[in-house]
């Protein structure tokens, strides 16, 4: 049976990354449905927020270019919200896999807690659906890498979206799909790819979670719209073997992560003896 896939993101339905991911999924013969926030929702984690009009969630048909026949919706809600309602049949039969991305900017290290891209994947996993979060490290463009401390950031920041390598991230993600579908249900694969042509990738490696890492957020500047920001701890030399270090070295990184889970190694014994 064809795998049914929900493609979502936190950059918004019009973002180029979701287009690339949906296209790649369709090329692999998957049954694709796209539902994503109407506008950017970076840094929303697994938030449950939505806008209704007359008691109904606002949903617009939003056909994507070059994806005729793929149902695509812009939803006035957060990525986590969209994922949850999709699993309950809001956009046709529930998906068996959720692919979230391709995000504009890396989501690496423990800071993925805050990521809307990862939040959608966590929401899926928590509700019994396999999921992958996919991000493109836009700050790694050209010679600028996370390890270069942003020396070449100005140059990298001027790269137009059309010139970024969304397709590289989408291809890496879909190549990992068989590993996802054979993994335990509650696991999420978090995939980060440098902004490079696929042929220039040094490979795909398993990364450990950097202690803080990097997450994308937006800051609304009054009267100036939104400013995209990469939130990261400064002065940390990339710890070897982490997702951040792999990206800086030109590798795509994949980390298996798990959302809310019980910690059984905490001593909470003896509570039933108290009044």
């Amino acid at each position, binding site marked *: 049976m064809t795998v049914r896939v929900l493609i979502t993101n936190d950059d918004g339905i019009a973002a180029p990354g979701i287009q690339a991911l949906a296209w790649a999924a369709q090329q692999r013969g998957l049954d694709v449905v796209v539902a994503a926030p109407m506008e950017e929702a970076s840094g929303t984690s697994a938030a449950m927020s939505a806008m209704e009009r007359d008691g109904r969630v606002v949903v617009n048909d939003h056909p994507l270019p070059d994806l005729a026949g793929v149902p695509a919706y812009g939803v006035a809600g957060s990525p986590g919200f969209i994922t949850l309602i999709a699993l309950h049949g809001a956009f046709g039969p529930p998906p068996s896999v959720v692919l979230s991305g391709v995000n504009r900017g890396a989501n690496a290290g423990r800071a993925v807690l805050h990521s809307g891209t990862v939040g959608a994947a966590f929401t899926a996993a928590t509700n019994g659906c396999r999921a992958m979060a996919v991000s493109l490290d836009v*700050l790694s463009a050209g010679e600028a890498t996370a390890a270069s401390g942003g020396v070449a*950031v100005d140059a990298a920041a001027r790269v137009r979206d*059309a010139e970024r390598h969304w397709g590289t991230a989408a291809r890496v993600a879909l190549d990992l799909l068989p590993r996802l579908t054979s993994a335990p249900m509650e696991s999420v694969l978090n995939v980060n790819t440098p902004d490079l042509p696929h042929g220039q990738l040094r490979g795909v490696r398993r990364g450990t979670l950097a202690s803080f890492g990097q997450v994308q957020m937006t800051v609304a500047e009054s009267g100036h719209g939104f400013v995209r920001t990469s939130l990261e701890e400064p002065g940390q030399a990339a710890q070897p073997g982490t997702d951040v270090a792999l990206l800086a070295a030109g590798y795509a990184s994949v980390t298996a992560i798990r959302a809310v889970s019980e910690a059984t190694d905490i001593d909470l014994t003896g509570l039933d003896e108290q009044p």
Partner: protein
Amino acid sequence: MVFAPTPQLTVTVDQPNDHPELHLHPGGQGVWQARMVISLGVDVVLCAALGGEIGQVLEPLLVSEGVDLKVVVRDSGSGGYVHDRREGSRQEIADVPGQPLSRHEIDELYNLALGEGLRASVSILSGPNEPWLVPADLYRRFAADLGANGGRVVVDLSGDHLGSVLESGVFFLKVSHEELIRDGRARSDDTEELTRAMYELHAGGAETVVVSRADQPALALIDGELFQVEMPRLEAADPRGAGDSMTAGVAAVVARGGDIRTAIRTGAAAGALNVTRHGLGTGRLDSITGLVDRVRLVPADSRQQERTTPDELAGRVVER
């Protein structure tokens, strides 16, 4: 519904061969927009105020354009212009702007157009030929009343009229880079500067924004993402009117239930064809349709990607 408060009579003297010709047409932004909407196969109700001798001539001319014309009769005369094109380029002989709409005329036109606008899925609020003919605040009220009742408002305005209509919010705004600079919304025609202005317009109330640039591809801000509208180059015969085609193309496609990307690509195609011939607001449906597929929306965002630390975020708290 096309709101055209002050249509003009355009008189053009031309001489393509031995004998001079005299062309009489209704004109003004709303009329040109309406003409293009009709050529895209969508019915138009045109609401206008007409008066005097010029108004009497304009009325049958407007009807012959194929619009469903709704008129408020004015006490003062409509405006118009006379152009001489015998030397190849347009020479202005006379320009008669007309009188500002009176209080009574404004009220009557507003009621008429609002009634029609509430019945239409899309309303184009076109500007007066001179800003002082119609008060800007009328556009704010109009957009508020239509928007609150599910109507989609499409505009190509600048100056005070743009500022007013944004207060109520619009579905689609087309504006030129010259107008952005003239209004002080952009400091230069630099792409980055125009992009910044577009995000501000979006934050200020325009859902979708298209900025036309004279000889560079237009920029479109759709669902918060920036695109460049790339299309095949056609040799321009008359650079005026491409903006009206964009606005009308968007309105026509959205009125038929089309999505905003197709709408903008159609508007761009209509604009490209319009400039290849004289006569504002012309363009044949089949030739436009053929060109739409060749118009591409290319992701163009290159907004500054900032880097922040948690400490910096904490430091941004305003001192108490």
